[in-house]
């Protein structure tokens, strides 16, 4: 046994799970506008919007017509490639509009909500009596399987797959991200049930990652899972980083990743037999009034008008983001909470600012020097706007991205391979291990202002298409 272990180099299996894994590369961006740990009143909205694009890789086929009555849990669309995967309505009410864009591509389905939410009852289930296939089937039927992502390709899962392992990140490290411990508080039973369901599906283990200073019993002493603790700056909370430090994904292997809020969704589904898409959403960002930076219960798809009304800075252009500033979706003041997001961030747009000789300002030099003194941390909280702050250029600086990319991958060469459309090179350089979000920090610090997440997404999609043929 020992001999075999010696054959490994950098053997990820050798890690001692009791000790925290230290992530050294990365960057914590300290933005102004952290949320207070208080829960405010539930945000209700007259309309709820479901976006098929939130479910990467989902090819929608609509199952309802405008005007049709639906309950919370009624399927709205299914995936053409895997018809058993469905996306269901988050609320009960009437289908208001089915919006299509160019080439009749489905953009969204809008539901006009009823006053009180009516749930479709799927029946309470005892997990112990169910086979993995039945669990997956019922999750697919309830539209919950669509929330789970897989590596490779960072897309929706295939229900026929048995994942090698399932990874749940028990903390968020992205800028201004909510505290998972606070979100789970009060719903510990749902969380554990959710983990039990996942543990039943995989052939391997469910890995739950936490911070070493985690105080919550439901996380730290969760059952049926392998706890791994991670120290270090963002992207320590990203699934890909955790996977690559625990056990990397190789060709022909499939692992699943689940967001902690979706573990609650799964748990609630098995305990109560309903699909309750209510989640705690943090309203954050420099432009949110200090007293309103808090947690709000919201149902996925809810319009944010009632959330941001009277709680954001007036008189300047604002950018509303569903999600965090690195990976979130740009939504307007009339936008909606996207599936999979745990926060709404509001920052200045910045298109009215005229920065005279801005690139010569000393704070920009200080910025550069800071990076050297303490590479993983910027000193002060700051409130950046959405400007690019420079023009797009060819790749000039080298090894810039390495500093914020804590995986055994050469990010620059992977990007080059994707840009060159060289699928063989992409595979060899480890594209199966990454998701676009892993390149978000690279994109943030990049001096040549390239759209790296978009490039990676295109590469993953291309590869998925090629491999299907």
């Amino acid at each position, binding site marked *: 046994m020992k001999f075999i272990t010696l054959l490994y180099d950098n053997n990820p299996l050798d890690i001692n799970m009791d000790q925290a894994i230290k992530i050294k590369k990365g960057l914590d961006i300290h933005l102004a506008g952290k949320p207070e740990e208080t829960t405010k009143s539930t945000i209700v909205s007259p309309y709820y919007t479901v976006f098929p694009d939130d479910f990467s890789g989902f090819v929608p086929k609509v199952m309802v017509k405008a005007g049709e009555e639906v309950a919370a849990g009624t399927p709205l669309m299914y995936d053409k490639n895997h018809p058993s995967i469905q996306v269901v309505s988050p609320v009960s009410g009437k289908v208001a509009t089915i919006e299509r864009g160019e080439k009749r591509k489905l953009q969204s389905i809008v539901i006009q909500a009823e006053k009180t939410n009516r749930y479709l009852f799927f029946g309470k289930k005892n997990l112990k009596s169910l086979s993995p296939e039945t669990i997956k089937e019922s999750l697919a039927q309830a539209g919950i399987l669509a929330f789970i992502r897989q590596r490779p390709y960072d897309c929706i899962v295939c229900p026929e797959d048995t994942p090698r392992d399932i990874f749940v990140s028990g903390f968020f490290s992205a800028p201004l991200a909510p505290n998972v411990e606070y979100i789970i508080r009060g719903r510990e039973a749902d969380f554990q049930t959710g983990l039990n369901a996942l543990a039943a599906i995989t052939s391997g283990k469910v890995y739950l990652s936490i911070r070493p200073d985690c105080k919550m019993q439901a996380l730290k002493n969760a059952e049926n899972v392998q706890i791994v603790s991670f120290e270090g700056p963002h992207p320590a909370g990203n699934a890909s980083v955790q996977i690559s430090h625990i056990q990397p994904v*190789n060709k022909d292997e499939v692992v699943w990743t689940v967001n902690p809020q979706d573990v609650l969704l799964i748990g609630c589904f098995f305990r109560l037999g309903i699909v309750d898409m209510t989640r705690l959403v943090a309203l954050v960002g420099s432009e949110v009034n200090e007293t309103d930076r808090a947690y709000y219960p919201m149902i996925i798809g809810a319009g944010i008008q009632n959330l941001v009304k009277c709680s954001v800075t007036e008189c300047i252009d604002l950018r509303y983001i569903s999600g965090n500033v690195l990976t979130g979706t740009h939504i307007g003041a009339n936008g909606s909470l996207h599936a999979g997001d745990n926060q709404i961030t509001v920052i200045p747009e910045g298109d009215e600012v005229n*920065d005279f000789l801005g*690139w*010569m300002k000393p704070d920009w030099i200080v910025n550069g020097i800071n990076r050297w003194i303490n590479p993983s941390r910027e000193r002060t909280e700051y409130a950046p706007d959405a400007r690019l702050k420079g023009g797009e250029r060819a790749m000039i600086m080298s090894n810039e991205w390495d500093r914020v990319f804590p995986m055994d991958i050469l990010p620059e060469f992977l990007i080059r391979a994707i840009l060159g459309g060289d699928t063989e090179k992409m595979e060899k*350089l480890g594209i199966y291990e990454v998701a676009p979000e892993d390149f978000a920090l690279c994109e943030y610090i990049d001096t040549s202002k390239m*759209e790296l997440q978009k490039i990676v997404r295109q590469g993953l999609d291309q590869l998925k298409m090629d491999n299907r043929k």
Partner: protein
Amino acid sequence: MDFLRNYLDKIKPHFEAGGRFSMFQSLFEGIETFLFVPNKTAQSGVHIHKSIDSKWTMSIVLVALLPCLLFGMFNTGYQHYLSIQESPGFLMTFIYGFLAVLPIIVVSYVVGLGIELAVAQWKGHEIQEGFLVTGLLIPLIVPIDTPLWMIALATAFAVIFAKEVFGGTGYNIWNVALVTRAFLFFAYPSKMSGDHVFVRTEGIWGIGKGAVADAFSGATPLGQIGQASTSISITDTLGNPVNYWDLFWGFIPGSVGETSKFCILLGAILLLITGIANWRTILSVFAGGILTILLFNAIGSTPAMQINPLEQILLGGFAFGAVFMATDPVTSPRTQTGKYIFGGAVGVFAMMVRVLNPGYPEGMMLSILFMNSFTPLIDYYVVEAHIKRRQRRSKNILFSPVHSAFGSN
């Protein structure tokens, strides 16, 4: 600054497609983005961007070059007045040097930026900032007596054939400033080395006129080493011995910006703390150079082989090349391991050319250009090694019994 912004907004339509001055659109954009940070906001991907961009990067390099430039001007004056045996005071010395160096800077920028601008307009993209640095590097690495028309010709050659034909900044294979120098070096060898080019002896516009001293010889220390047949003692242009401090502060003849190791050190510190230059490259250039010299010292059969490492790195353009040329991110390897290999090889070859080839007293330029050519190859092998390691990992896990056992342990 609102009035300026308003004025720019007012005249902007003239420069856009269809406007009266649309042929100068790139120039206008260049000036506009220089004056105001463009307020274009992120449309996809991350919503916030760090405030460093390519303009910032290039500006930092320019600031890092400033000490070398200012000292280079002073030293040009100092060497001149030494040759005519006058000492007119600090200010006059500097003014003389300033007047001598300024035309080279102007010519280099006008020719280079002119070509950049034309290409940017032709291709319809923004002006790339790369030449801001190249344009200042060129005056710093040529002898002061290089005729201006030669500088213009060489700059044009380098910008067109070493950069634009490859696709512009970020795609060139060889360092553009060094290609300029190499062009001069091979096309006009008599103007690029020897005893008559590194010290300007004539006056400029009546300033600094005087008879050259009888004892004067314009040979640089490296030139003296190259010509020496027996043991060497390096002297200044009048035959007085020079010590290590003279070499460190830079009071010796040589290309404009390369003489003061102190000023190069200041530049290096700025480049390193801002993270623009990679310490791996600089360190390995010096390591490669010093190890090679130690080896030659051990052999010691010619006078050039007997120069000790400290003296060697204080002489010529070695330090300047290590800090400002070898670290060029575009033409040096993009992998960290590759940087060690590249830097080490640059150091080794530079010293080998210096010591073994009496025809070329300085080898830094040739060495860096030579290694620039190997950069893609170095990167290729480093990446292949990385891929092999990854494949080994995946094989181990797929075919090892440990993997299946792992699920239950």
